[in-house]
């Protein structure tokens, strides 16, 4: 039987580096039942033995209520992990020991990995690992993950002799200990489960009756101590962690090094630096991404689409095949230029630790929109492409924020919509008109953000965010992270793109499109003042937003759009196209991240918003 190990640790302690180093590229991402949090599992082959390694999300505590914390708690108590590899940041040993103490109480075989030994040493901290090993009764490995140092030792321990179960027990307040003992005895629980029950955290092995009796005891304790058991237990663990850390660490005072944070986290020059960074990234991705997208589309047209049409297959197969190629073009045209490039930059920002500083500075502005500092990232990304932007909302701490951010991201003009605005409005009407569309969208987004922050259910929590240490990113892992995103995006979006594209192709083949055109023509003319073919072009924009523009030219039979539509018609066309119904890839990602219901709501909402605003404009133009 293959052994299964799970990597546990605080965020940014180098868990992912260790995981990547040990597993190579053969990684499988699986969603744990009932959550959107992904668990990465990989198979490690070492010395002719195999074992599986699961990278658990980085957390600070096992008793929290966030998705990640629930997932890890559930996985460690009920999951199939045989042993825990607990990764600790040696420089911040005391804080990291808190989670380790909790993990130790689960009583699974465990090995401690003290990572970032180099950082600890340069901070003047010497850690007596044998004393630490003795305290916990389990082996301790010193590693430097960034240099790959000692990582194979982890594999040695995982496949080697059975690891010991940690023996340490933190000293709890005697009321807590008595209560935990009682719960254990009456409900036949483990010590860890009893403590979870007292802390009022949910776990599938804890029945409602257990939770009820635990709650009764908790409120007794709370009355006596004027503090909830959760707080008391937390404080007890911290005290134990502090005692252990003080005992095993020797600190030699170090000279204070120059602190970049004095620049990055101050209002000045921090905020200008932030703005320049964001605009810079946006600009580079915009230019480079646009160029790459064009290259991909033209290469695929020349070498795939054109030769395919030249085959002169039966008209039906020609249409279907063409639709498949079109879907591939749409998917790849987003995946590499935008998703990949953006994630390269975001991974750099993340790995350098700058992202947390950006979030801190942006916190104030984001408040108006019902978001916190972390919400800056999706909003900035959305100017490039809604898809990676929505994927990045998973870093937001609450569902409420994820929903608000997703709605706003869907509304903000991505680069494809910018193509529509610049290609139609700027070139046929003028720059002023093009900017006015941006203006309308920004006002709508702002108003919507203010409204959503009031009506979206869920409590608004403040931001509590650990600042990652500033360090140099490792190119290999930056690229790898971006590549994982691309793969994920293609898995999510490709099927939907293929299906919808093929359906549209078949409709076109069956003449349904022309039927639709003549059917919609009177309605579209009456409501939006647009001819039927323009509305059909809008529908094609759902596949890929630029396609609305391209299809309009194809259906209109000319690239000189001004000759077939008036300025006001073009303006309405562009505005409706920008606002209404996100593209298929976006809808696919929305469904994945916030659920089918919310995705459907957003789609219907944007459809209504787009058309009603278009109708309003049409009405205004008629009056003028």
């Amino acid at each position, binding site marked *: 039987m293959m052994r299964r190990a799970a990597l546990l640790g605080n965020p940014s302690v180098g868990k992912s580096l260790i995981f990547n180093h040990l597993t190579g590229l053969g990684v499988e991402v699986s969603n744990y039942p009932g959550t959107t949090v992904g668990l990465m599992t990989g198979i490690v082959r070492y010395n002719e033995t195999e074992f599986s390694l699961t990278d658990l999300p980085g957390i*600070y505590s096992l008793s929290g209520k966030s998705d990640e914390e629930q997932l890890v708690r559930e996985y460690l108590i009920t999951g199939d992990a045989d042993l825990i590899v607990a990764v600790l940041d040696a420089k*911040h040993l005391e*804080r990291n020991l808190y989670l380790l103490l909790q993990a130790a109480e689960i009583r699974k075989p465990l090995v401690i990995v003290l990572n970032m030994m180099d950082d600890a040493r340069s901070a003047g901290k010497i850690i007596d690992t044998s004393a630490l090993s003795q305290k916990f009764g389990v082996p301790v490995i010193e590693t430097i993950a960034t240099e790959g140092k000692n990582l194979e030792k982890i594999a040695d321990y995982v496949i080697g002799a059975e690891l010991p179960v940690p023996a340490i027990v933190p000293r709890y307040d005697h009321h807590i200990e008595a209560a935990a003992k009682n719960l254990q005895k009456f409900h036949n629980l483990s010590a860890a489960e009893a403590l979870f029950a007292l802390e009022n955290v949910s776990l599938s092995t804890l029945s409602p009756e257990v939770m009820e009796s635990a709650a009764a005891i908790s409120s007794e304790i709370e009355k006596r101590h004027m503090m909830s058991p959760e*707080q008391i237990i937390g*404080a007890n663990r911290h005290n134990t962690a502090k005692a252990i850390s003080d005992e095993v660490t020797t600190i030699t005072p170090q000279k204070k090094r120059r602190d970049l*944070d004095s620049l990055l986290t101050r209002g000045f020059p921090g905020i200008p630096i932030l703005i320049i960074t964001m605009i810079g990234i946006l600009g580079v991705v915009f230019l480079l991404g646009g160029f790459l997208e064009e290259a991909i589309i033209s290469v695929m047209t020349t070498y795939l689409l054109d030769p395919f049409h030249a085959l002169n297959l039966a008209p039906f197969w020609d249409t279907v095949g063409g639709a498949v190629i079109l879907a591939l073009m749409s998917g790849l045209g987003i995946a590499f230029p935008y998703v990949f490039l953006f994630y390269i930059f975001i991974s750099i920002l993340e790995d350098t630790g700058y992202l947390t500083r950006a979030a801190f500075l942006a916190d104030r502005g984001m408040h108006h929109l019902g978001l916190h500092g972390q919400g800056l990232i999706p909003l900035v990304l959305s100017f490039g492409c809604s898809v990676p932007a929505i994927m990045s909302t998973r870093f937001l701490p609450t569902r409420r924020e994820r929903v608000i951010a997703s709605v706003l991201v869907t509304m903000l003009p991505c680069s494809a919509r910018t193509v529509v605005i610049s290609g139609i409005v700027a070139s046929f009407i003028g720059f002023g008109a093009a900017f006015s569309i941006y203006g309308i969208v920004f006002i709508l987004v702002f108003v919507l953000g203010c409204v959503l922050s009031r009506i979206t259910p869920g409590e608004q*929590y*403040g*931001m*509590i965010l650990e600042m990652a240490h500033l360090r140099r990113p490792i190119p290999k892992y930056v690229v790898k992270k971006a590549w994982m995103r691309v793969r994920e995006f293609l898995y999510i979006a490709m099927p939907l793109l293929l299906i919808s594209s093929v359906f549209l192709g078949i409709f076109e083949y069956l003449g349904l499109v022309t039927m639709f055109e003549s059917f919609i023509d009177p309605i579209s003319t009456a409501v939006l003042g647009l001819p039927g073919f323009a509305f059909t072009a809008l529908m094609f924009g759902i596949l890929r937003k630029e396609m609305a523009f391209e299809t309009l030219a194809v259906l209109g039979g000319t690239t000189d759009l001004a000759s077939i539509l008036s300025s006001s018609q073009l303006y309405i066309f562009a505005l409706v196209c920008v606002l209404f119904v996100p593209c298929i890839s976006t809808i696919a990602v929305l469904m994945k991240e916030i659920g089918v219901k919310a995705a459907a709501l957003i789609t219907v909402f944007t459809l209504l918003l787009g058309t009603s605003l278009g109708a309003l404009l049409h009405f205004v133009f008629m009056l003028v």
Partner: protein
Amino acid sequence: MTFELSEDILEAILNTGEAAVKVSHLENLANGNTDGLKKAVTCLKDKGYVTESAEGISLTDKGTVKASQVARKHAVLTSFLTDVLGTEPDHASKEACQMEHSISSETIERLDTFLENRGPGGHKSGRGRPWGRRPAHMDHAVFQEHEGHAGLTKRNPIISLSECEEGSLLHVSMIRCFGKHSRLIDLGVIPGELITLRRKLDNNAVVITVKGCDIALSPEVAENILVERCNTQ
């Protein structure tokens, strides 16, 4: 019961302001239980808090200190009940009578500082502490008793984290609306912890250093963390 009654007796003698008080004046404290009253007085005499003479019972020096402590607890609690919780004054006084016996000096001290500094400008101006200045000899007694608890030689006002300036070294005293911020415990922001305020933006968003890690907090989180300035800089 004897313990509470003894404290009530000391307090009552102090409150009359006379050198000696007849036992009969104290009977209402014991609700007609004369035996209990006698027992309590004997007990107080044994402990050296009071002496009995022909004029009645009088407080010794030790008894005066003890009585002042009880009286002060009563005053602080009454003030907290009326000013902060809005309890009706008569009722507050009665409740304070019961609470004063079980509350610790530590808690009373904290409650006192809390009342003194309730928010910037929380107290209406011109209205001092309702229980007046502490007598000089009492300060000494209270602090002696206190020193062992928190290890702070001098009390500093308890203020919100948002009111401190960059670079200050602070002791966490309390976290308000705790349920909303349970992540704070995971990161080690717990009462008693020593933290440094690293950065403060003009909207009161802050970065603090806890256990060697930098943590960014929104203004609404920062204002719910109550801290005490640490003198040992």
